[in-house]
């Protein structure tokens, strides 16, 4: 089984799981929901198999390309959503996270598996910590994005006094909001750790003249960190509570993902 075969099978599984998810919301039915959870779980297992296979092939932790990053982000996202769904009985989180994970995998498939031999990623433990923390931070922001969207959808329906049918699977408004805040704060903390560990690694490995301080990826990541920190701080202001915080979290995530992805192509220090 090649990495691409595993990837395509996982994508197919997630497409069907996403379909089941929307069907579950539409019909308020448990059957399609179980199908979505099961297929998401199967897709996660396939992605684990893919990363293990990649690790064996390149003989290093599979985090050496954008392909690996997208696969890992999708896997972490599915795992986080399924975990929270099972722990806190929030099926809508799985349903909401599936399209994001699917997008990440489609991007990975578009790039294709890198065939050229790649340099080992983590030359020191600090570099490994840096990459893992940054990835976890983006996963936290992705979960915050999903919960912020849930909050906005539910708030809109409650304000519109719409029928309660679509709200059946939704967590309470307060739950969505609190989760958004918690994941934004968690993301900021993880990103702080990621940036600091990256700074330590770069200072020890690159000279000042190498220009690593002005690397587009580093600048964008710092801007993302600042943006989410501002959202976290503003959320404690009365006038910013609720919808404004949710909108800001969601917008920050979309913008940060887009800018960060584009910036990675200009980065001389990041291959992902």
């Amino acid at each position: 089984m090649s990495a691409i075969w595993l990837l395509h099978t996982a994508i197919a599984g997630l497409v069907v799981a996403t379909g089941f998810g929307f069907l579950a919301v539409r019909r308020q039915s448990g059957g399609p929901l179980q199908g979505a959870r099961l297929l998401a779980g199967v897709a996660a297992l396939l992605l684990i198999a893919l990363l293990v296979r990649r690790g064996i092939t390149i003989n290093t932790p599979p985090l050496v390309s954008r392909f690996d990053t997208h696969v890992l982000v999708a896997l972490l996202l599915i795992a986080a959503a399924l975990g929270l769904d099972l722990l806190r009985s929030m099926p809508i989180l799985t349903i909401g996270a599936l399209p994001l994970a699917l997008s990440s995998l489609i991007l990975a498939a578009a790039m294709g598996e890198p065939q050229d031999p790649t340099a080992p990623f983590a030359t020191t433990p600090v570099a490994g910590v840096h990459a893992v923390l940054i990835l976890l931070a983006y996963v936290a922001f992705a979960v915050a994005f999903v919960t912020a969207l849930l909050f906005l959808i539910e708030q809109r329906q409650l304000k519109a006094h719409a029928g309660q049918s679509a709200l059946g699977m939704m967590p309470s408004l307060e739950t969505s909001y609190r989760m958004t805040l918690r994941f934004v704060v968690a993301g900021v903390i993880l990103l702080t750790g990621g940036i600091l560990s990256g700074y330590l690694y770069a200072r020890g490995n690159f000279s000042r003249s190498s220009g690593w301080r002005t690397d587009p990826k580093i600048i964008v990541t710092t801007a993302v960190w600042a943006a989410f920190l501002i959202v976290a701080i503003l959320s404690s202001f009365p006038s910013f509570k609720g919808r404004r915080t949710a909108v800001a979290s969601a917008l920050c995530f979309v913008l940060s993902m887009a800018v960060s992805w584009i910036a990675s192509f200009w980065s001389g220090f990041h291959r992902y």
Partner: protein
Amino acid sequence: MELSIVGLNHRVAPVEVRERLAFDDTRLSEALDGVRKATGAAEAVILSTCNRVEIYVARPEATENEITLAARWLAGHHGVPEPLVTPALYRHAGFDAVRHLYRVTAGLDAMIVGETQIIAQVKRAYQAAHDAGHTGRAFNLVFQRALAVAKKLHATTGIGRGQVSVPGVAARLAEKVFQDLARKRVAIVGAGEIGELTLEAFRHRSGIPPVIVSRTMEHAERLAARYGGRGSSLSGLAEALAEADVVISCLSSHEFQLTLDLVQTAMKARRNEPMVILDLAVPRNVHPEVDLLENVYLFNVDDIESIAARNLVEREKDLAQCLPIVDSEAQQTLLDLGEGEVGGLVGRLRDTLHSVADEELKRTLERLGDLPPAQREEIERMVRRVVNKLIHNPTLAIKEAAREGKEAQAFLEAVTKLFGIR
């Protein structure tokens, strides 16, 4: 007696229309006087709840325009233009009217199918009309039977399962906003029956002592003592709003008690923390613009209908079980009502004929002089048998006509006239 009903409910009229036609409990007797004068009804009952306004009238004989008169009076009484009210009204007469009342009383026509609160509301409406002398034999029979049928349906069918009520659904709506109601403070504005029912619905959900706001401190404190909360008069409403996460308003009032300014001030005081306001009153207590405030979630009785719609689907089987029983009970009531009238007429016919026979018998016995007691008794028995035989066929025909319904009134009038019955 011809029964009819004119009214509107949550299905045909939004709360904005219903609240304009709602009756004030304290002026119900006056309203009943008015509707009887306007329609020429012998009996009248007004049922005014959050979800419906219905006028029940009974007249000795049917007239073509009594329903129109009631509709016109309803609009006029509340100063609402007739064209605004009339299209929303439903009208029932005879069997349909009785069946409608039975469905309403049993909660089959309610927003929350099977709710029990309506039984008490119908009972109160009937009692108010009865105490003020606006009910007679017809409505005493029909309303008492309606209450009995409702109790029977709740006891013998699945319609009463789950103790569904508007306050119960309101609590579920609050749970859509808050993760855990146990950590939220509830404030009830209005210490009446709905206020108490709502407190009951939130009792096991909220762990923080409630705040009860009422017009009179005495009522507020009475309820607060029962539910372990704090009582307050209306002057303390702003303070109560500032500390409450869930506000349930059910005050009988024709003015908005929770104004935009008041809620805005409360939201500032609570640092814009979310607040759920459930306006269960009709007329509404909360200004509609309050809904525009950020982090304020306002629901009124009509919003509960969305949940009620789901409830209706779940209750379809129970409804199918109840409706034939209601139809049969309504039919029986009409028969009993008709037979009651017929029974009176037959009794008077018998009395009339027997009194004629008795007079003639007395005259004849006087003419015959002293007769042996055995012979006198035999003659008396013979006369009674003749009268009874003569009455037998007309009695059966009268009862038959009453059962058939349509020709009954004309037939009874003819018999009354033919035999000179008073």
